[in-house]
């Protein structure tokens, strides 16, 4: 196998970790949303942290091997699809970071409520259904899919 093959494989592996991890996070966040007891919310948010770890590793792989591929193949650094992909990569990370910090606060509330008797809480329910948090979390996933589309169509290449 050529160096190009290995670089592409590692780059695509990163993309699969990102999208796969985002799907896993979506499953667990959706499950937390449907949970009533705080202990269940804590459980699902702990699972979501595994998914976020996969996304983090994937983000590093996609960027690192993606930049290497650009250099190796000889694409221009100013090509539309490369610039857009980098901008969206930063945007996706920013949205993921904002969503993650909100999720941490909700998890801490759920942990406190679990310790206090594990009784369903309207406050926890409202925080889980916060439209801003939901928009940021799902928006991050949509941006990742947009990056995938850019990688396939390569506009401006």
């Amino acid at each position, binding site marked *: *196998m050529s160096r*190009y*093959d*290995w670089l*592409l*494989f590692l780059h*695509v*592996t990163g*993309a*699969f970790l990102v*999208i*796969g*991890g*985002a*799907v*896993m996070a*979506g*499953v*667990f966040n959706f*499950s937390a949303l449907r949970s009533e007891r705080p202990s269940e919310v804590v*459980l699902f948010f702990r*699972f979501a942290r*595994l*998914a976020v770890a*996969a996304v983090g590793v994937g983000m590093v792989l996609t960027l690192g091997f993606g930049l290497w591929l650009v250099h190796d*193949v000889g694409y221009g650094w100013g090509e539309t699809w490369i610039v857009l992909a980098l901008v969206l990569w930063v945007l996706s990370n920013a949205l993921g970071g904002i969503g993650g910090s909100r999720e941490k606060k909700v998890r801490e509330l759920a942990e406190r409520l679990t310790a206090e008797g594990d009784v369903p809480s309207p406050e926890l329910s409202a925080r889980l259904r916060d439209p801003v948090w939901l928009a940021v979390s799902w928006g991050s996933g949509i941006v990742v*899919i947009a990056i*995938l*589309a850019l990688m*396939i*169509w390569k506009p401006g290449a």
Partner: protein
Amino acid sequence: MLALVRPDSWNFPLFLHVLGAALLVGATGATVVIAIRAPTLRRLLVRTIGFLVLPAWVLMRFAGQWIDSREDIPGDPGWLGVGFIVGDAGLVLLVITALIAWWGLRRPERRWPVKAVAVISGLYLIALFVAMWAMTTKPD
């Protein structure tokens, strides 16, 4: 270097194929995590397989067939064979997994169904990455 000279008409089916495969990886990963870390959540396990894993497989497989019909690949290369094996044998495994998970939901006192789901899904996840390696690097 095929990706560098790909006709535009291949892009949409390829996008759907890759998206389906990535969704399948994530859904299968979620199945493994639930089966190992939360074996009592059997309804969630069945729903994850039924509403996410199987639809993702359908998207991956049918989009794969679509792009295969466009590419008209000569001969019978090994990398394509790996993709077909993991894809088609995968459906059998996934259907068996779904049935076992459903059986486990009906028989909550039995532990083996969830363990079986964890093992089969874990093996299939590894197979998906092997297929991804073959489809990406296209070894002879």
